[in-house]
């Protein structure tokens, strides 16, 4: 096990940052972000389910309960949400690249890079839109 790890990260290893090209970074970040998102989704669902089961009434009341009192007073919660937004945008757009690649679109090295950076640009713009329109509602005003 240790020998395998040493081979991966050591001199000439595939996961040694010195040897990693764009595609390997994308692959690695896709995996790590995926694992992070599984944890986030569970936390997200548990938090909202808890609120909806404790607070009775229509969904808006429930979400208002989540919005005000303690949750977004704490800026770390907001920071985590923003971080997750970025991670979701990256994972989603890089995932689209993978689907395109698997369907034979943009397989060439050059077009592959163009597609990657175009999708990253879309991810940045989409995150920006969500922050611009969503931040006041999250209580980050």
């Amino acid at each position: 096990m240790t020998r395998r790890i040493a081979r991966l990260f050591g001199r000439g290893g595939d996961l040694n940052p010195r040897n990693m090209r764009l595609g390997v970074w994308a692959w690695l970040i896709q995996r790590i972000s995926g694992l992070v998102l599984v944890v986030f989704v569970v936390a997200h669902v548990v938090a909202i389910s808890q609120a909806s089961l404790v607070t009775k009434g229509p969904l808006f009341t429930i979400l208002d309960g989540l919005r005000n009192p303690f949750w977004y007073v704490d800026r770390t919660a907001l920071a985590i949400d923003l971080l997750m937004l970025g991670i979701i945008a990256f994972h989603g757009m890089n995932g689209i690249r993978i689907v395109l690649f698997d369907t034979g679109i943009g397989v060439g090295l050059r077009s592959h890079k163009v597609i990657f950076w175009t999708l990253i640009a879309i991810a940045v713009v989409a995150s920006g839109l969500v922050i611009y329109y969503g931040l006041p509602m999250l209580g980050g005003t």
Partner: protein
Amino acid sequence: MNASRSTPTNVWLWLFQRVSAVLLVVILGVHLWLANFGQASSSLRAVLGVVLVGLALFHGLNGVRTVIFDFNIGAQGRKFTTMLLLLLGVVSLLFGMYGLWPLIVGG
């Protein structure tokens, strides 16, 4: 046995992973839109919620399975991992439906 005739499970999982990926990008967009502008009937939101929970669970847990399988864990380990993740998925799905229940029954 009849692996040459029927599509192997792994190929189906690979395909569903891609299909769920595209659907999740679209539905998450709608989800974020509704979270901000919130203009949809509760029945539409209930359907979206159920679909979102189901797709996200499948996509997430199957992704975890893929990552774990990339470490050489042997046939026994693969079987155990699959069973464990399947169990986790079913339990989580039930919990998700429990959480969405007020929305499903109407409110």
